[in-house]
């Protein structure tokens, strides 16, 4: 389970509140879509969740482990794909995966199997011996996803994972994420593509000005009224 408790993060000595008293819970087996306009605080929230940023106040609890109290145990439980995958450009794809396998202590057999399975699925297997610097944005995105899934973490957090992927890879990623969640794992991802969120997620959260302004299933967000997610999104974010 992911628990965010009254999470707050500000910049410029408190002048800008990027994340403002945000609380939410994501249960095991759920795919949670995190929506919001540009600059709403999605990426900051995600960075707080994975420990790249530290909150001013509030807590992040991942699978029962408090991130601030035991960061190493908490980090072992998650995989993360950033919005812009800056990976080591002069290292080959395979070396990068090996490094992650080593630091996440993934057994040899499992890492080999997952590398081959995901590499084949993303049509990246032929390129893994090349330096990452020669990869396109989409290829780097796929490699970042492979790296995040190498340890089969119970919590997978992805920031705009579909950006830069071709339609086939995008479809494939959704299938892989669905399968990952069906095994009782959590998939938490941010996106701007409302159709994907609408069809793909079990629950949705909408953030604006750093505050979670709506959260629940699509039906709960509609509150019994007709309308698309786009209309709900526009309505709640323009209030």
């Amino acid at each position, binding site marked *: 389970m992911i628990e965010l408790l009254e999470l707050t993060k500000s*910049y410029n000595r408190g002048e800008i509140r990027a994340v403002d008293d945000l609380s939410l819970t994501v249960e095991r087996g759920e795919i949670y879509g995190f929506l919001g306009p540009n600059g709403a605080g999605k990426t900051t929230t995600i960075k707080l969740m*994975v*420990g*790249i*940023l*530290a909150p001013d106040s509030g807590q992040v609890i991942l699978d029962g482990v408090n991130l601030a109290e035991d*960061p*190493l*145990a908490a*980090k*072992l439980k998650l995989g*993360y794909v*950033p919005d812009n995958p*800056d*990976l*080591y450009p*002069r*290292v080959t794809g*395979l*070396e990068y*995966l*090996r*490094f*992650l*396998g*080593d*630091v*996440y*202590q*993934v*057994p*040899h057999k499992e*890492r*080999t199997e997952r*590398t*081959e399975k995901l*590499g084949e699925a993303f049509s990246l*297997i*032929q*390129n*893994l*011996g*090349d*330096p990452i*610097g*020669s990869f396109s944005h989409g290829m780097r995105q796929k490699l970042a996803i492979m790296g995040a899934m190498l340890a089969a973490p119970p919590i997978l957090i992805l920031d705009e994972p579909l950006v830069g992927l071709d339609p086939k890879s995008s479809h494939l990623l959704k299938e892989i994420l669905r399968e990952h969640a069906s095994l009782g794992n959590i998939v938490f991802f941010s996106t701007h593509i409302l159709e994907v969120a609408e069809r793909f997620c079990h629950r949705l959260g909408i953030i604006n000005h750093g505050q979670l302004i709506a959260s629940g299933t699509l039906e709960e967000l509609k509150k019994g009224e007709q309308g698309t997610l786009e209309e709900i999104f526009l309505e709640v974010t323009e209030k």
Partner: protein
Amino acid sequence: MRRALSLWRLYLQNNFGLSSLRQRLRGGERIKLLVFLLLIPSFVGFLTIIYQFFAGLYQNLPPGQEAAGLTIGFLTAGTLVFVFGIFYLLSVFFFAEDNQRILYLPLRPREIVGAKFATVLVNEYLTLVPFLVPGLIAWAQLFPEPFFWPRALISFLLTPLVPLSVAALVGLVVMRFVNLPKSRDFWRVAGILISLVVVFAFQFFIMRAQRGYTQEELVKLLLAPDGLMSLIGRSYPPALWTAQFLARGNFVALLELLLLSAGAIALVLFAGERLFLGAIEGGGEVSKRKKDFVQPQSKPRGIFLALLWRETALFVRNPVFLTNGILNIIFPPVIIFFLLPSSLGKLPGAVSPLYLELIAIGYIAALPSLSVLPATSISREGKQFWLSRLIPVAPQLQVLAKLLWSSIITSLGGLLGLVVLRVLFKLPFWALVRAGFVGFVGSIGIGALAVLMDTLWPSLEWTDPQKAMKGNLTGLYGMLSASLYLGGVALLVIKLVNSGWGPGGIAAVLLGIFVAVAVVLLQFLVKSAPVLYWKED
């Protein structure tokens, strides 16, 4: 010309952060400025040592031959500019990421090369200031004469032009014509290194040839006015011409220097127009032949080994990191090996073994501050630092891996220094072992200090790797704070030597100090690591 000047202005603004200086001073970088001000005494101490060296050199030369000291100064300056300039040029010309952003602009290759060359030149001037200016001040005080400072300014400005032009030409030719399909960057760097060795070997043989003078010829030469200056200047005439103009007001020498400098720069622009585009094309190719299947994942390593592998891969595969990190520690012993014998004649026994051992200890201990490696440990990760924050590895372990790795690399420089001492001075084996051990222990504290600086003020938002190395003030902070610390240790050692202490006793005292300081600094480092990795934005 105007376009090249605009590009140059842009490079200078980017290189020195001029546009954002005011903002940075208003923001969190005021603390850096404060630290810089606090470290000024050690910088002044360094300048004083250089001043005293030159003043001693001028005074100890025979009357009428003092200008040979100036020639030595300009010769050394030229050597420094050539050796370090060639790798700086390499990164600015060919490995800078801005090439992709300027190639589509309506600029001629020679304009780009000219702007880049001028940017490196400004950096070389700044590098030469602490080395040459104290020597010029010493000369002005010992031999005051009218219009010295205008001549000094012209001499200073002309000093790096020829060696930097030669460096640029070597770089352009090697980069254009070394085009091996695999590990191209590695072979290009190797090509440059081989070129450097060839130049130094050439210099070495010229000096050996000079030793062919008979005693009578040498005496005759040394008795002639400025004979020694002419002798030294034969291996590098621009140094001789500069010294002749500066010390004797010889305008013919100035004209020779001006013509050579202008010709050298014109040649750089000409070669740039012809070779630059061909030299930077490609670089991101991958092999056409694909493997039929993915090679199985190699055997798992321990976490610490994986961290050490990462440090190695990030370092050796980036030519800018590799050259900047290795040069400072490899070249001092190499230069001493090639240049010192001819200056001192038969060396064994020429200098006290105690002094040599102490110098070796000091050199090895100071290596981490001379190399920018430890002081850029974090900064070299740049935008990929998010991964270090993400992985489930304690920050303490990560910084210790960085420290150990940089210690291993800098130790190679120490080892080379010890070999040179053995070959040139026949220092006893056990003295070498003792110096190596005590120096290495000392280097751990200095290395920890440098890594600590980078942990406190890392530079992660760079696009040009050169910014992570030379444009990073943590290297300067590390060097200045290390010189304060080692300066204090040196004063204590001088007292011990004057009190009649032997090498064993002094080594034991040094070992005690080094261990104590290393323990304290390692604790600071280990405590500051989680703040950077887990707390700061």
